[in-house]
């Protein structure tokens, strides 16, 4: 709306010199990566290997992994695709915290010590940073992550107010990277637990004013492996690369179950 009211920007403005030119070159530095390697065809369990490389502050952990793979050891294996935090391929444990390798800048890490990189926990390890994602997607599928409606389809769009949409906006951001679920201590000890990502995706529909499947989903999540297993440790919220307030979403789902009282 506000595009119509925004005044026409000036044809010419004065830019501060640090914006229009100059600025220094980006400094490079040496750092060490300590990576948990696992080759299923050779190893019985993962072992640490160290790699020393020269990188730049603007580089991401993904750039460092690529440098190692492309220049030192081509067998280093990890998933990645978009490289800017929207596809969800490269969740891994970096210095003990679940993060996306493509969204973690080296300048934000302490590069005076070795940077540790290992696969996310709680899912079967396949090779190096690659885990079997199937159990994760299985939980996702079980919460019916799709719009459920009844009756005739309208000819035009279903109406929804901006406020109604805002109720679930946060949980639509999920990229299914599993950083949250694989940071959850409950999930580590009980692989049957749905885990935060599945609950986030249930939340996305339960609070969508157009959806009629809420009761079914709440019943699923009221199960003994459902929302009540959450111990509110906030690991998931801290791990989410999309900034979703996951613990809050889980609390809202708990509230909804109590209010509907089966």
């Amino acid at each position, binding site marked *: 709306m506000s595009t119509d009211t925004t005044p026409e920007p000036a044809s010419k403005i004065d830019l501060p010199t640090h914006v*229009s030119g100059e600025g220094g070159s980006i400094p490079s530095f040496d750092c060490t990566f300590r990576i948990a390697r696992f080759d299923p065809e050779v190893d019985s369990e993962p072992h640490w290997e160290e790699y020393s490389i020269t990188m730049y502050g*603007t580089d991401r952990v993904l750039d460092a992994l690529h440098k190692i793979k492309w220049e030192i050891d081509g067998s280093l294996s990890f998933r990645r695709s978009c490289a800017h935090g929207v596809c969800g391929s490269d969740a891994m444990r970096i210095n003990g915290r679940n993060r996306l390798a493509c969204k973690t800048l080296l300048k934000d890490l302490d590069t005076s010590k070795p940077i540790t990189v290992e696969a996310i926990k709680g899912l079967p390890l396949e090779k190096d940073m690659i885990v079997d994602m199937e159990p994760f997607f299985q939980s996702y599928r079980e919460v019916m*992550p799709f719009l459920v409606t009844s009756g005739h389809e309208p000819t035009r769009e279903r109406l929804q107010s901006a406020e109604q949409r805002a109720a679930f906006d946060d949980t639509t951001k999920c990229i299914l990277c599993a950083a949250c679920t694989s940071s959850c201590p409950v999930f580590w000890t009980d692989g049957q637990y749905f885990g935060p990502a599945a609950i986030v995706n249930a939340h996305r529909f339960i609070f969508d004013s157009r959806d009629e499947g809420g009761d079914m989903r709440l019943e699923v999540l009221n199960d003994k492996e459902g929302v009540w297993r959450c111990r509110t440790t906030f690991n998931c919220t801290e791990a989410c690369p999309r900034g979703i307030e996951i613990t809050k979403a889980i609390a809202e789902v708990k509230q909804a179950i109590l209010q509907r009282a089966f």
Partner: protein
Amino acid sequence: MQVHHYDVVIVGAGGAGMRAAIESGQRARTAVLTKLYPTRSHTGAAQGGMCAALANVEEDNWEWHTFDTVKGGDYLVDQDAAEVMAKEAIDAVLDLEKMGLPFNRTPEGKIDQRRFGGHTRDHGKSAVRRSCYAADRTGHMILQTLYQQCVKHGVEFYNEFYVLDLLMTEVDGVKRPAGVVSYELATGEIHVFQAKSVVFATGGVGKVFKTTSNAHTLTGDGMAVTYNRGIPLEDMEFFQFHPTGLAGLGILLSEAARGEGGILRNSEGERFMERYAPTIKDLAPRDIVARSMANEVREGRGCGPNKDYVLLDLTHLEPSHIDEKLPDITEFARTYLGVEPYTEPVPVFPTAHYAMGGIPTNIEAEVLADNDTVIPGLYAAGECACVSVHGSNRLGTNSLLDINVFGKRAGIAAAEYAKTAESVELPENPANDVVEMLEKMRTSDGTERIAAIRKDLQDIMDANVQVFRTDETLRDALDEIAKLRERYNNVGIQDRGKRYNLDLLEAVELGFLLELAEVISVAAIHRKESRGGHFREDFPDRDDENFMHHTMTYLDPEAETDGIKGMRLETKPVIVTRYQPMERKY
């Protein structure tokens, strides 16, 4: 080797592949093969929106949308296809809404719409609000929504199955697809999928360039696989450079930033687009804006220590407006460049973004063996295909539209065909070629490294085949690519294992990139004119008399083109229905 039997096999699980799967899966036994997981596909990186003349916020109609698409493509668009797309756009958006896509809303609760480059009211009079959007993550929401529908309909996915060959068999003198050969990344096993219909929806080939908005995985697989089976590639010289990639990184900052009021400035603080497109300025189509930016830099008005980028200025917009409409892209600027867009302009430069060309199809998404012969049972949709709705320059938002409209058409057509067609017999030893190629590469003692060759290729393409091209730069590129192909013959990999051998995967992808870079360069040499995304400094004007046609490139062992053995170029007429070519001014 395992053999699977399906009615329909869809290769690729981005927007086009999953839109096709939703239709096909409800009509015929369908398998979707992807080298990733479906939700990793690059449709998810699209930001700004999907245009349709819903007229929810101001007067609009699909005929204006058709015209804008044709003019935006510099009249190389097949107009029958553009009409289909603009007309079906309205239902395509409504379909997505009914599937649950959380569009931003108007105060009345309808789907909100905003401005986008090249989309105008009444044939260019002023910018029009046509783009339907979900903040600046419309592609993410489309990908998620389509995946959700696939889950709902129980679509069968084969994740991390990399398709390396299309099997074609001659039946009564007609070549038809018999299936595909794929490599399972988890195990290294070969799987042959026999199918009556095959749909390619494998996306783009941006990784031939160094500075690109494309994912690492966009290596033109489907284009290369079909090309190697004798199917032509259409209009490969036309590549879109998106104006606003984060400088030095290429990460996309949506055109929605300009749709919402953002403007471009040079080192002198000038809003330079006022000079290049006086009417719609910063909202001119991408080819024009990208060239204008590159020109500012060439003439010494670039910013930064190397004066090699310009600035995207959002500082005159309300922070709350930015947060509501452009949250993700402003976050990219903060994360990757450490720039706060509320108060500082963001360094940007054109980034290789979209292949207008691809596997030729008609409006039913049927693949063509030449200018007009349909290959029964073979379909393509999305960026890997060329319908051609984008001509020589795609308008913003029209790719999300393309995948939905033609993905749906491909899915329906493939399933309907499979209902009546007989299976085509698989050739004897169907996987031999693939197995031989993979084993040779996996066990090679070659000394050349994949990454080194790929880096050289990307540097060469950025230097010679980017926004500005000349005969000389293009021939330089071809010479260098030929040397790289020699080096590629001696490529060695270090991972000798079977499981998740991504080293091997990258080696195969590099082969496809080299091949397609050559096709792009040869096609670009032959188009001695400037049109849309293809700008020749030695031929700066559009030449309708000699070049108002599509380029068709064939793999042909007998032929030789520009010293390149095995390549043949032909032309294909453009379908013109109601709009005669005019000068393209904005």
